[in-house]
C-alpha cells in the first residue's frame, strides 16, 4: 500500500535519488536517475559523505530541487550498510513517492537492504520508469530481451534500481536546497571496512559497462597493433573499447576489456564489432546492444545474422575510413548528405 502524500495544495511528491559518486564528481548514471525522477515528481538527491559546491551544483543542474546530505566517517570508510542507514533515515523523514538507485553491485545491495528495512517492494534492472496510477510503472527486459515486463510496486515506498543508460541525462537547472540529515548508524554499518583505494589507471575512455558506444575487436583484427584502430574509432565516438575472448587470450588487449560469456556484459546504444565472427559466446555479452554494426571480411560470419548494419570488408581498411569520415563530418558543419548511414 502506497503511503498517501500529505494533503497539501499543489503538492508534488518527492522522488529520492541515491547519488553515486566518482572521484570528485557524480556518476553519469545518477544524472540519468535525476532525469527519470522529474517524470515522477520532484527530484531530490541523497548525497553520502562530505559535500562541496561543485557536486551540489551538478545535481542542481540536472534538476535536483533538494539535496539531502548525510555525513559520517562510516559513509566513507565502510561499504553498503552505512548508505542503507542514511537512505532509510531520509525515506522515513521525507516519505518520497519512490526511491531510485543505480542498478549496479552496490546500488542493488543498498536497494535490497533498504527494501527489507522499510518493508517495501523492490524492482531491479529497470530499463524505464513511467508515472502511473498507484505509483511508478517499471519496465524490465526479461528472458534476455525477448520479453519486456511492466510492473508496479504495491507495498511501501517503491525502491527501483535502474540500469545505466536507461535514459539520457537532460539538464534542468534548479537551485537545490541543502538539507542535513542526521543519521544514527547501526552496528552493522561497520561490517565491511574499506582498507585501501587504488585508482584504476585511466584510459580516458568511459567505463565499458556504462559506455553508450562500444567498439570491440576480435580475432579478425589480426594483431595487438591493429587494436589501435579500434581505440581510434572508440575515441572518435567517445566510446569504450571491448575485445573478444579470442583477442584477450591472444593478449592483443587486456582481459578487463573482454566482452562475452566469460567477460563483461554490455548493452550500449551502439556496438561496433570489428573482425568479430559473432560466435554465441561473444553474442551472450553484447546481445542487449541497441544497434549493432559489424565489419567482417567473411560474409558467412554469424555476426551478420544479428547486426543491424553490416559491412563485408577488411577491418584494416573499413575502420580507418570510418574514422576519417566521422572526423570530416565533425569538422565540417555542412555535408548533410554523405554516404547513406540510414
Amino acid at each position, binding site marked *: 500500500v502506497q503511503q498517501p502524500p500529505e494533503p497539501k495544495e499543489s503538492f508534488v511528491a518527492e522522488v529520492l535519488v541515491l547519488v553515486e559518486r566518482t572521484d570528485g564528481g557524480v556518476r553519469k548514471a545518477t544524472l540519468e536517475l535525476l532525469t527519470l525522477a522529474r517524470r515522477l515528481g520532484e527530484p531530490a538527491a541523497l548525497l553520502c559523505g562530505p559535500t562541496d559546491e561543485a557536486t551540489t551544483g551538478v545535481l542542481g543542474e540536472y534538476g535536483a530541487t533538494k539535496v539531502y546530505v548525510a555525513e559520517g566517517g562510516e559513509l566513507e570508510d565502510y561499504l553498503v550498510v552505512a548508505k542503507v542507514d542514511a537512505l532509510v533515515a531520509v525515506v522515513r523523514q521525507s516519505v518520497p513517492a519512490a526511491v531510485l538507485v543505480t542498478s549496479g553491485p552496490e546500488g542493488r545491495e543498498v536497494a535490497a537492504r533498504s527494501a527489507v528495512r522499510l518493508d517495501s517492494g523492490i524492482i531491479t534492472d529497470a530499463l524505464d520508469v513511467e508515472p502511473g496510477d498507484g505509483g511508478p510503472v517499471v519496465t524490465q527486459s*526479461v*528472458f*534476455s*530481451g*525477448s*520479453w519486456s515486463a511492466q510492473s508496479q510496486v504495491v507495498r511501501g515506498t517503491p525502491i527501483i534500481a535502474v540500469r545505466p543508460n536507461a535514459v539520457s541525462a537532460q539538464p534542468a537547472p534548479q537551485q537545490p536546497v541543502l538539507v542535513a540529515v542526521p543519521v544514527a548508524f547501526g552496528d552493522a554499518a561497520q561490517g565491511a571496512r574499506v582498507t585501501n583505494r587504488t585508482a584504476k589507471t585511466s584510459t580516458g575512455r568511459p567505463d565499458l559497462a556504462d559506455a553508450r558506444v562500444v567498439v570491440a575487436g576480435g*580475432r579478425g583484427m*589480426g594483431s595487438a597493433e591493429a587494436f589501435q584502430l579500434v581505440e581510434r574509432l572508440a575515441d572518435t565516438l567517445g566510446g569504450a573499447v571491448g575485445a573478444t*575472448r*579470442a583477442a584477450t*587470450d*591472444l593478449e592483443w588487449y587486456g*582481459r578487463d576489456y573482454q566482452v562475452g*560469456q*566469460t*567477460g563483461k*556484459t554490455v548493452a550500449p546504444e551502439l556496438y561496433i564489432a570489428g573482425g568479430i565472427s*559473432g*560466435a*554465441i*559466446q561473444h*553474442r*551472450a*555479452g553484447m*546481445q*542487449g*546492444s541497441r544497434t*549493432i554494426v559489424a565489419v567482417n571480411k567473411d560474409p*558467412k560470419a*554469424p555476426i*551478420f*545474422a*544479428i*547486426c*543491424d548494419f553490416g559491412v563485408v570488408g577488411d577491418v584494416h581498411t573499413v575502420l580507418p575510413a570510418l574514422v576519417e569520415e566521422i572526423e570530416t563530418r565533425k569538422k565540417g558543419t555542412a555535408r548533410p548528405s554523405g554516404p547513406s548511414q540510414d
Partner: protein
Amino acid sequence: MTVRLVVGLLMTAAAFGLAGRRLLTLVRLGRRGQAVEPGRTADVGSRVRAEVVEVLGQKKLLKWTVPGIAHVLAFWGFILLMLTLVESYGALFDREFHIPIIGTAAWLGFLEDLVAVLVLVSVVIFSVIRLVHSPGREGRSSRFFGSHVDAAWLVLFMVFNVVWSLLLYRGAQVNTGVFPFDSGAFASDWVASLLEPLGQEANELIETAAILLALGVILAFLVLVVHSKHLHIITAVFNVAFSRRPRALGALLPVHSDGKPVDFEDPGESDLMGRGKIEDFTWKGLLDFATCTECGRCQSQCPAWNTGKPLSPKLLVMDLRDHALAKAPYLLATSEEERAALPEPQRAQAERPLIGTDGAAGVIHPDVLWSCTTCGACVEQCPVDIEHIDHIVDMRRHQVLVEGEFPESANPMLRNLEHAGDPWGRGSGARMEWAAGLPFEVRVLGADGGERIPDDVDYLFWVGCAGALDDKAQRTSRAVAELLHEAGVSFMVLGKAETCTGDPARRLGHEFLFQMLAQQNVETLNAAGARTIVATCAHCFNTLANEYPQLGGHYEVVHHTQLLAKLVADGAIRPVAPVDATITYHDACYLGRHNRVFAPPRDILERIPGARVAEMPRTKEQSFCCGAGGARMWMDETTGQRINENRTDEALALQPDIVTAACPFCIVMLTDGVTLRQQQGQAPENVEVIDVSEVLRRSIRTSGAPAHTTPTAEGTPL
C-alpha cells in the same frame, strides 16, 4: 630353539602391536566420515567380479604393460610367499616343520623359489621405471612428481630385503638338513652351495639368525605398510569392493547428507551441502584417500596437469589424505579439554579451510578445484578405483551452495540458465532458429495442439542449447534432422519447451539449479510421454540417460552417432558420394569414457567412401579432453597452455583435412584451436572442424555442395 621362539614371538607381538594401533586409529578416523550413500553394497555379483578382475586379475594395472607386469609379479609374489611365511612361523616351533600334505613336494619348492626370484625381478623393473621417470629428470611430466619418492624407494628396498633374507634362510636350511624340499627349490639350493663351504656350525648359526632376520624384515615391512602409501595392499581390496559399479563415471550422485539424498525442495536445517571439511567426506571418501598409492597414472592423463595447471588428481587426493591424518588427533579427541590440550600444530589443522588459498592455509587451492574438466581420465586410470570426480564436485558443491565462492566468469552462465534456460541467455524464443531453411517441416510438440508425442514418432530429438543456438551446432542439428528425414525416421522436437539439461550447473556444483532445470525437463518429458530420445550433445546425452532416472525420468536415450551408425549399417542411409579427406575423430569425454560409446562414430566414418580415418595417439579410453567439460566451457582459462590447443595440435599432427567430433562443445573448442593455429600459420587453411553427422551428410549428397553452410537465422535483436 628357545631363543628363536622367544625372539620371534616377541618381534611378532611388537610389530602387531604397532601396526594394530595404527590400523585402529585409521579405522576410527574412517568412522568419523559421513555415512555413505546407499547402493555401495548392492549387486554383490558385480563386486565379486571386480575383486576377481581388478584385484586378482590386476586388469587396470595391466593397462600399462611394463609397470603392470611388474605389479602382477609383486602382487602374486607376495600372496604366494605367504606360504614361506607359514613355513617360517612353523619352523619357530619345529625346525623340521613343513606344510602338511603338499609341504615337501618338489613343485612347491620350485614355485616358492620362482616367485621369490620374480619378486626380485619386479623390484628391478620398478627401480628402473623410477630412475628413468624420476621427477628429478622429468619434472612435472613425471607421474611421480609430488609423490613421496623416498618412501617409495624404502618400500622397494624392504621388498628386496624380504626376498634376500628369505633365500639366505632357506639356503642355510638346505645345508642344515631341515629344508622341506629335496629338489625343485633351485634358488635356495644355489644359495646353499655358496654357504656350504662355511661349515655345518656356521650354517646352523646362519639358519637361526636368518629366520629371525627374515621374520624381522617382513614384520618391519608390515609396520611400514600401515604407515605409508603402501597401505593400499590392505585398503585396495575394500576400496574396490565398495566403489561405484561399473565405474565412477557417467552420472554424478545427487547431494547426500548422512547417507540420504538432500531434498532440495525442503532441505533439512543440518543437511550438508557438499564437503566443506575433511570429516564431511563419507567413510568411502576417506578410504579412497587412504588407498591412493601415489602411482600418478591419473596425473599422467589429466588435461589440467598436462597443460600446466595446478590440478593433479593424485596431489589432490594426497593433500586430502595428509590433511585427514594431520587432523586425526583433533577429530578423534573425545572431549573439548582433550582438544585444547593438543599441540598447537594439530589444533591449527582444525582451523584450516578445506578450500582456500595458500595465504588462508587452505588444504586445496581454489585454482586446483576449478581446473577440473570432469573428463574422467583419472577415474578411468586409477588402479584402486578412487572416485576423484565425485570428490571434486562435492567440494565444488560446498563452495557454490554454502560459500558462494566460484570463478566469477561462470556467473553469466548460471544467471542465463536461471533466466533464459540456456547458458548464453538467448531465451526460449530462439530455440527453433536452427530449423530455418530446412527443406521440410520439423514437427514440434504441441504445434498441432497435441500434448503427447504421437505414436508415429520414432524419436524425440533433444536438440540441446548448443544445437539450437550455437552457429556450428545448429549445422549439426540440421544435418541430423536431414539424415533422419532421409532415412524415414520420424522425429519430433520440444521447441520452446526444452531447456538446458542442467549439466553445466551440476558440474559447477550448483546442484540447486540443476535440480530445478532437471525437474522441469523431466516433467515436460514425462507429460509428453517420451520413451526414446536422440541427442547430439554428449553432455545432454549423459544427463538424460544417466542422471534423469535419479529424478524419475526413465527414457531410452541414444546419441545421434549411435542412431546414425545403426541406420547406415541397416542400409537406411547410404553413404555413396566420396569424401576425399583424411579425417580424425576426437572422442568426447562424456560420450566415450563416461558412456563407452567409442565405436559408432568410427563405424560411420569407416563407411564413408574416400574417407581415410586417422587415430590420434590419445584415443578412446585414453582420449584427451577438449577443455570444455566440468563447466570449464563457461570459465576463463588463464593458467598454462589452453587445453584445446594441446588437443588441436595432436589432431593437426595427423595432417587431417577434417577434424570430427560428436559433441558441440568439443567442436567449439577444437574450432577455436584450429582457427588459432591457422591464424598463426601453423595449420593449412582448408582444415575444418565438423560433426561426424555433417561428414555423413556430405556423403549422401551427390551434388557435392552442402545445402546449409550459411547462417539462416533471420532474426535481428530488438
